[in-house]
């Protein structure tokens, strides 16, 4: 198993931090992707953040009332080794499945 941390995401409109209102998951919980994780409040509004990942919650950062900066750790999941490619392990080498064209092409239609 590997640990996969997620930071507080960019909440848009130049917001740099948010205050934790209430955690909707606890350490040890198994969460599905898109399951609500936490309520946070910015200077503009309150939002509920959905989970970007399925996994088991290992740690949460920020008690209710505490401020978390955008980009700072918010939650850490435990996930099977082969799914942790984004952070923590070396990605497996795959032949590219799609090619990306770097030069513009005239529209066909």
């Amino acid at each position: 198993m590997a640990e996969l941390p997620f930071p507080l995401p960019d909440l848009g409109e130049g917001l740099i931090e948010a205050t934790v209102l209430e955690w909707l998951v606890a350490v040890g919980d198994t969460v599905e992707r898109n399951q609500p994780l936490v309520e946070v409040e910015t200077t503009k509004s309150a939002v509920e953040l959905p989970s970007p990942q399925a996994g088991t919650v290992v740690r949460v950062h920020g008690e209710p009332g505490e401020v978390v900066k955008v980009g700072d750790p918010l939650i850490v999941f435990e996930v099977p080794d082969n799914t942790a490619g984004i952070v923590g392990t070396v990605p497996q080498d795959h032949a590219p499945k799609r090619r990306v064209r770097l030069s513009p092409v005239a529209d066909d239609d």
Partner: protein
Amino acid sequence: MGRHRDHLVEGIDPHLFVEEHSPAEESTFRPVLLLHGFASSTKLNWHDSGWVRALTDAGRRVITVDLPGHGQSASPEERDAYAPSRIRADLLQVLQDSHVIPLDESQPASGVDIIGYSLGSRLAWEFGATQPDLVHRMVLGGPGSADPLADFDLAAAQQYLADGSVIHDPSTADLLRMARLVPSHDVFALLTMVEAIKGEPFSAAEAVPQMPLLLVAGEKDDRAATMPELAALSSHAETLWLPGRTHTNSVTSRAFKTAAIDFLNG
């Protein structure tokens, strides 16, 4: 998904942005109409806060509408487009377009439930009072018997926008701050709505909805301090206070969502 209605109401197309969201699984529940607050939007009040997901997961079809001058709805020039009576007429058309049928005991999916927040609760109160054959139950968030928009100091706000003069009334200053928070909002459209509301201020006792009501507010929500007065007008009202929550951050509360869904199912 989202689209502008092109039905004429009283000869005018309101250009309201309406969305319908299907339940996660087929169900026989009646739909829920969501009415957002002043200077908010369907996105801020209901999507970002997790309400649409919570309701569709609970088997509800959800109908959302951006109020005039808000979200993705049009910002008409004429003041009458923002009048509460006009908005109620538009909402009736929205529900008819969404195939909501009058309450019928033999059909569990008939009629509609409404969840409102702040100004949306005021609109729901009046809509429910005038549409008893359509509205089954209502949850009113951040409600009060006062009308902060009717009491808004329009002259002070306009002076502030012109030359930065200090606004002395704290409620007016706070409402204008909210109105200017969302870059996509047209502040002048919102001030036109304030003018229209001054012409039709909230008078809760004038028409009281007769269906069961759940009134919900944060314990630190100053705007909802008069919630008990609203509850006292109805003989079918329950109240729920959310510990530690304000007018802004009650919206996301899980306790609020759970209580609302349970109440509407009851």
